[in-house]
């Protein structure tokens, strides 16, 4: 695939976000193109979380724009962005712990199907909701025998998979994955990598991740964020060889 000529789906243009004297996002320009998996890496404290907040609408940038599929969405709410197809997953899973895995995904399906001002028909036995939900859970490899279990009782690995399933149920035009591998064991990490590989190409993905094996296995392009600035952006081989990147990571490992 020729990523250089593909249309950008998501663009951050000159984003700046300050907290008091700290510039957490310092003139970040970045794009994700159709069909691409773009990974964003950076040491702790680089400003990844702040940047995601501005892309998803939980934070307002002090300057700059967020463009999604040609539309300026800088001032839109989170929910409005999701409706347009900009969907995220959370590093620390945000799930409805009292409900089953199936109910979690079914609710996301329901949200996509339009308004929920429907007061009388029972939702948990509505095939229009549970049908697609079961399909998505199967697609991400969630154990079909465990979909009725209470989400709070699931393992961490299952919850990370479920988090991804909920995001997929929103029918993303672009997926913003915030550390999907965080806290996973080696075999779970590998399985998640394979799941993401299957999604890649179908849905453009911006992947924020610390697991370098996964990043270099999956990414078409990598951008490196250090102290709120993008210090390098390019193909994996170029990033691996970049002296500035090596320095940033070596500095972190030394400190």
């Amino acid at each position: 695939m020729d990523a250089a000529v593909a249309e950008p789906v998501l663009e951050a243009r000159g984003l700046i976000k300050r907290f008091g004297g700290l510039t957490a996002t310092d003139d970040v320009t970045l794009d994700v193109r159709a069909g691409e998996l773009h990974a964003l890496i950076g040491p702790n404290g680089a400003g990844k979380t702040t940047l995601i907040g501005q892309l998803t609408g939980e934070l307002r940038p002090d300057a700059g724009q967020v463009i999604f599929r040609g539309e300026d969405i800088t001032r839109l709410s989170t929910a409005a962005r999701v409706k347009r197809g900009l969907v995220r997953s959370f590093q620390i899973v945000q799930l409805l712990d009292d409900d089953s895995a199936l109910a979690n995904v079914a609710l996301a399906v329901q949200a996509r199907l339009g308004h929920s001002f429907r007061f009388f028909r029972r939702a948990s036995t509505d095939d229009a909701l549970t049908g697609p939900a079961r399909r998505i859970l199967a697609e991400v490899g969630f154990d079909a025998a465990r979909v009725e279990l209470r989400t709070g009782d699931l393992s961490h690995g299952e919850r990370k998979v479920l988090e991804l399933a909920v995001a997929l149920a929103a029918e993303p035009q672009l997926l913003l994955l915030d550390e999907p591998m965080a806290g996973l064991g080696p075999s779970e990490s590998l399985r998640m990598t394979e799941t993401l590989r299957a999604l890649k190409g179908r849905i453009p993905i911006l992947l924020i991740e610390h697991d370098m094996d996964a990043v270099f296995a999956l990414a078409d392009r990598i951008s490196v964020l250090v102290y709120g600035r993008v210090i390098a952006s390019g193909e994996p081989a170029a990033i691996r060889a970049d002296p500035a990147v090596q320095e940033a990571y070596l500095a972190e490992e030394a400190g």
Partner: protein
Amino acid sequence: MADTSLPEAMADAARTRGWRDRAILLVMFAAAAALPLIADAAGFPATTGIATQIACLAIAAASLNLILGHGGMVSFGHAAYFGLGGYAVGILWEHFRLGEPIFGLIPGSNQLLVTLPAAMLVAGLAALVIGALSLRTSGISFIMITLAFAQMVFFLFVGLKQYGGDDGLVVRRRNLVPGLDLREPAQMYWLCLGLLALWLWVLHRIVRSRFGRVLEGIRQSERRMAAIGIATYRYKLVAFVISGVGCGLAGALMVNYLRFASPEMMSWQRSGELMLMVILGGLGTTLGPVLGAGALVGLEYTLGGITEHWQFILGPILVLIVLFARGGLMSLLGYGRGRG
């Protein structure tokens, strides 16, 4: 999916449980309906009156439970809607008695089929306005702002000398309704019991509907709701209004029973009692608020018969229940959130 045995077994168990629960429910309802006859036969006719009050308060508590137990919105001002519903009945009676329309426009009425919908409408409109403003906040601010609005309504009625001020407003005769004579204690009770059953059924349907799912989601993680594209404010507001309407209905019935409306109905203590009933009975359960209302009113009457300082005894009992039965009385009976 080759292996569906586990979900099927679980579904079977749920169905068995469902039939057992339905049978229990039917027996309970029959017992509740027979209560006036039993009370008269046993020589405790006053019991019917107490049960009527419990039914009214249960309607209010169940309404509060919709937003508190299911939506996670801690409103500390729901007595306001209870009182407004009650005053709707009282004020309509007063103008009916005097024969002069309200503001020269709306004629008074002593017809239950007019006063009940009017009470629900008034309470619903108040909940719409107060909810629209309060729901812009959350957490402690939300608790405080709902309390503040309820206090405003309270003092408004204390100041309304035309309708009795803090002395309250006497409704000399209960409303008329075709086919029933509400002067008969048993018939007044059956009306309240019937409307309680109907309202619980409506709330039960709402809780399990798509709307109810969104409400549950808001309680558990509002951030998640936004992340699947749901703008939560409108859903919270609609739930808030439904809950206000239910409290208005409850207040209208209560004023019919007591034949008296007073600002005390909307005091912050009353708001606290409604919250207590929901928590005591079991947050997020259908029958919990009914048990909570029954337990609280029952304890007040029995302890009140023993000593005038009954609140000294009631307090520790409530603390013990909240400490040792998280999930309230419903959890003691083996029904958790979302079951029963």
